[in-house]
């Protein structure tokens, strides 16, 4: 067993893990943070996506010891407590979620995209979300949501 220190959604944790334990297992099984989903555990679907020091990673392929001391954000911690992040609000208002299973990962992929490119075109959004699968929406309303959020967020920071 190995000691792992990490910060998730602003909270510090110290837990013991095995060498093979993935970040997804840490989040779901040890910390009971369930928005990252085990959609495939093969790195293909993106439902397990989280931000590690602001970088989008697939937590099912990430060894938990590789995030030693790092800051993890899941969709539960995207907004300040009691608030809803503009991306979350935009996904809600633009019907970007259907079954909701891909939604947490999708929103974090969008966050990573907007951090780098606050004014994306639809093509940019497609590229930014290309690692995250959705079987319900056909993506159109997801892309609508990200564009809507980017417009709002730019206005806010202006």
């Amino acid at each position, binding site marked *: 067993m190995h000691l792992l220190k990490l910060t998730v959604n602003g909270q510090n944790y110290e837990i013991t893990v095995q060498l093979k334990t993935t970040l997804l297992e840490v989040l779901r099984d040890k910390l009971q943070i369930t928005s990252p989903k085990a959609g*495939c555990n*093969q790195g*293909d*679907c993106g439902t397990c996506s989280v931000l590690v020091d602001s970088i989008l990673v697939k937590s099912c392929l990430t060894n938990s010891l590789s995030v030693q001391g790092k800051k993890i954000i899941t969709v539960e911690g995207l907004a300040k407590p009691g608030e809803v992040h503009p991306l979350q609000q935009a996904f809600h208002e633009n*019907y970007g*979620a*259907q*079954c*909701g*299973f891909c939604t947490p990962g999708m929103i974090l992929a969008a966050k990573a995209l907007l951090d780098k490119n606050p004014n994306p075109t639809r093509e940019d*959004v*497609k*590229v930014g*979300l*290309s690692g*995250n*699968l959705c*079987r*319900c*929406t*056909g*993506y*159109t*309303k*997801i*892309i609508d949501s990200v564009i809507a959020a980017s417009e709002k967020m730019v206005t806010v920071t202006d």
Partner: protein
Amino acid sequence: MKNRGTGIAIGHYPTGQNGGGDPSQAMVKIQPDGSAVLTVGSCDLGQGCKTILAQMAAEVLGMEYEQVKVINHSVDNTPMSSGSYASRVTYVDGKATVEAAENAREILFQVAGEILEASPSDLIIENGKVFVKGDRKRFKTISKIVEVATYEKHKQVVGLGHFMKDFSKPDPETGECDPFCTLSWGVSFAEVEVDTDTGEVEVLRFVSYYDAGKAINPMLVEGQIQGGSVMGLGAALMEDLHPYYPNIEHQPDNLSDYSIPTTMDIPDFEALIYECPSTEGPYGAKGIGELSANYPSPAIINAIHDAIGVWLTELPASPEKVLRALESQ
């Protein structure tokens, strides 16, 4: 060389379980604060049935959408539903929900009629209040009526609803039967570009125009059309669970090998809603969930023929199939 072509495909889709015999039931309880709880047994798979059933109940009860809470999570506490399949929930659960809400409203009218000294048939329900028709000053709030019903009239303000299209047994000789609640209609248009060197097919434009009878929530209907269209696009161009059929070796066992469409695969989509009301459906609604997945394949195959003059009679239209078809031309 890159050739472009267009194609159409049209069709129909039945609402409800094939052959009928699939019940759904609903229960509407009016709460002391004048809000309502709708209990149904169907599942929300993402299609949004909690949303649209709450809309229907709110409509009947003269409430805001936000005032209707939906319970569907536990079989112990929900009335029977045969399930969320067969494009049935909007229609079948919708009818059950409307009936349940009407029955709850009837109890409100009976009790309000006694308080307001009016005939229940002279009452209307609006904005959380029951009014005497034509007299905006004679009214009681729903919460007051529930209070009177509970503490004075010994009545529960609960409405039940049930709908099932009777099972229709097909005649073994002729197949004659009455197998559906209603039919929805769909027409689609695809424009493709086919690369005759690589066999790759790119869908440039896809227009879907589908009949929802009455769109209870147009954005959710659009979501069904867009989602179904992309699923159909996957079937048309990339998906095959047994690519070496009938051999099951080398069957895809991950979502890289079994490729479904990603954001990079989707064309310019237009989702349009037509409303040709069903005779018996709730507010004229028809099923929309499955219809939308059916037309991309034939529309795209027809567009490929228009572009390069070859017919593909097997899906998916993979580069290999396109090239082989061109070779054998």
